[in-house]
């Protein structure tokens, strides 16, 4: 009877400590409030350019990175702030990047679309759809050849599943049995074009069969589901069995970028997803299972608010790059 009960214990509770789960919740809030902060700064004219917000996809990012070891690596996408935070980046340096400052992760040269934190294993977001996929496979090749034991988690969106780079990369990862996990965050739209209008298969995970690797579709807004699926894929990769494809079903509340007028989807659809906020879903799960109580959830939110506020201040007061440094780092300076 006890055994039977254990089997019904949700994956997250079996696998992770309360501290780890509280940390995961905190990261979700950090992503949400980082992006709300960025959006707010943009509206107030404090930062320029564009941004692709992942509000609504926080559980997918944090849940996917949960099974990773500190030195495992990820590649990310244009909608990559969540992945960056999930892999351990500091929001102060992310804001500094947004503000184009020398203290930013890319010293102000990359901005939102190239956010990276190489020390923490984030090889970078990417402005090209599917651009990071072969790079992830290359990192997995390094892992295998140099015997580092690292697993590479490769994030991309549903739009990328119709790029040639996706298909070529999955094929080569499969024939060479490389330690890479492909995470397709399917948020239903590649910019405005729905998955139904763009993709020949119902579930993107079906593509895995064409490359002889495991493929699974899960609710990416369900922490238990996404974490367990990625955990299985990471173990599969780490034990030398090669790649997997995990399709994480999720939804972006905001438009594709700042220019989006949401003409391709209804208010009802958006509100339906907002009503099922993945962060509230996760915090409710944790409260129901006595991992923490409502006051502690509130305390996390308050501490995140303070961290965001301090991060924005850090960014604002950081030094701008020198104009004379505009060509620095095009090439590596080699000591003569």
């Amino acid at each position, binding site marked *: 009877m006890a055994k039977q009960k254990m089997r019904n214990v949700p994956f997250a509770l079996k696998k992770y400590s309360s501290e780890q789960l509280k940390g995961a919740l905190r990261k979700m809030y950090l992503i949400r409030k980082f992006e709300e902060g960025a959006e707010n700064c943009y509206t107030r004219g404090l930062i320029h350019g564009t941004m692709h917000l992942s509000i609504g996809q926080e559980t997918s990012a944090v849940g996917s990175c949960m099974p990773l070891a500190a030195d495992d*690596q990820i*590649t990310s996408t244009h909608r990559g702030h969540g992945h960056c935070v999930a892999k351990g980046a500091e929001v102060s340096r992310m804001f500094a990047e947004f503000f184009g400052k020398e203290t*930013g*992760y*890319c*010293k*102000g*040269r*990359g901005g939102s679309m*190239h956010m*990276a934190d*190489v020390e923490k294993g984030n*090889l*970078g977001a*990417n*402005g*090209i759809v599917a*651009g990071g*996929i*072969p*790079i*992830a*496979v*290359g*990192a*997995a*090749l*390094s*892992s295998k*050849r*140099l015997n*580092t034991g690292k697993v590479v988690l490769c994030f991309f969106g549903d739009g990328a599943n119709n790029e*040639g*780079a996706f*298909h*070529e*990369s999955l*094929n*080569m990862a499969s*024939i060479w049995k490389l330690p890479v996990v492909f995470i397709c965050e399917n948020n239903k739209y590649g910019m405005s074009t729905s998955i139904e209008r763009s993709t020949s298969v119902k579930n993107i995970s079906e593509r895995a069969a064409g490359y002889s690797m495991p493929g699974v579709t899960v609710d990416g807004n369900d922490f238990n589901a996404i974490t367990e699926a990625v955990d299985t894929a990471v173990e599969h990769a780490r034990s030398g069995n090669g790649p997997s494809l995990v399709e994480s079903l999720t939804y972006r509340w905001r438009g594709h970028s700042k220019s989006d007028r949401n003409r391709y989807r209804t208010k009802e659809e958006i509100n339906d997803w907002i009503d099922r906020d993945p962060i509230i879903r996760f915090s409710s799960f944790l409260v129901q299972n006595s991992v923490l109580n409502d006051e502690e959830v509130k305390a996390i939110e308050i501490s995140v608010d303070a961290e965001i506020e301090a991060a924005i201040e850090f960014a604002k007061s950081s030094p701008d790059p020198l104009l004379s440094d505009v*060509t*620095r*780092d*095009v*090439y*590596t300076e*080699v000591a003569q």
Partner: protein
Amino acid sequence: MNISVKNPDTEPVEMSYSEAIKDALDIALKTDERVILMGEDIGVYGGAFQVTGDLVHSYGEDRVMDTPISELGGAGIAVGAALTGLRPIFEFQFSDFATLAMEQIVNQAAKVRYMLGGEVSVPLVMRFPAGSGTGAAAQHSQSLEAWLAHVPGLKVIQPTTPHDAKGMLLAALDDPDPVMIFEHKLLYKTKGMVPQGHYTVPIGKANIARPGTDVTIVATSIMVHKSLAAAEELAAAGISAEVIDLRTIRPIDRETVLDSVEKTSRLACVYEGVKTLGIGAEISAMVAESHAFDFLDAPILRLGGSENPIPYNPELEKASVPQVDDIVSNVTNLVKGKI
């Protein structure tokens, strides 16, 4: 004088251009565990131009990796591997096929370091068999080096002798940034003396292949050989041509070119790529914008590929790129003030 010999072995030996490349690859594979070769049919087949030859037998399929026919994915995997600790040397079967991989070369390899604020580097070497003269027509004969030379973040080289092919490849491997090597297919069988063991020929330094006083011919790749042949004929007619083998088209060795023009007062640029918006335009502008302009006694001459895809018919094919006779007649006119 541009050679830094690390391990002066024994006397130089005669080798073909492709053998010299293979020798460099062999040294790299032997001395650096991080080096891997990637490309289509570079394993047991030995490469479309037999450059990698039998290396797979010495180093195995894990280090001499046949890729599927997936130029974009293959190039991107090489970029990712270079970012994370390996030293890939990627062979495109024909340089024309690199058009399929432009995304990874131009958007990723060239820019990752800059976009990430200098936090990473991409020590990637790519080899591009290029050029016309093999009867392979429009999709297997192009000279696209100027495309890549337009992209900051890349280095682009065109060695013209077996000596430089080996030394510059070894220099490219020492380089922390992506180096694109364009190898003219007609050079593969040409022979020359090559030092044994490891040595490097620096990237970014031109070579005065033949000194002269009346006119400077700045040439690239196989056009260096054609220009040298032309210079021989010009000498017989009393014209002393200085032939500069540019060797690197990004970054260009400005000093060597300008010094030469200052000395000779005349400039001709000879290259196989399509003439318009090519290497010759850059060299011409560089001279026109500099103090060397004041030394010019004649207009600048450009001889480049004609404005058409490379045709199949052998005579049409020859007519599409500068030949020795074209160089002789045009440079003669330049020197005699007929241009």
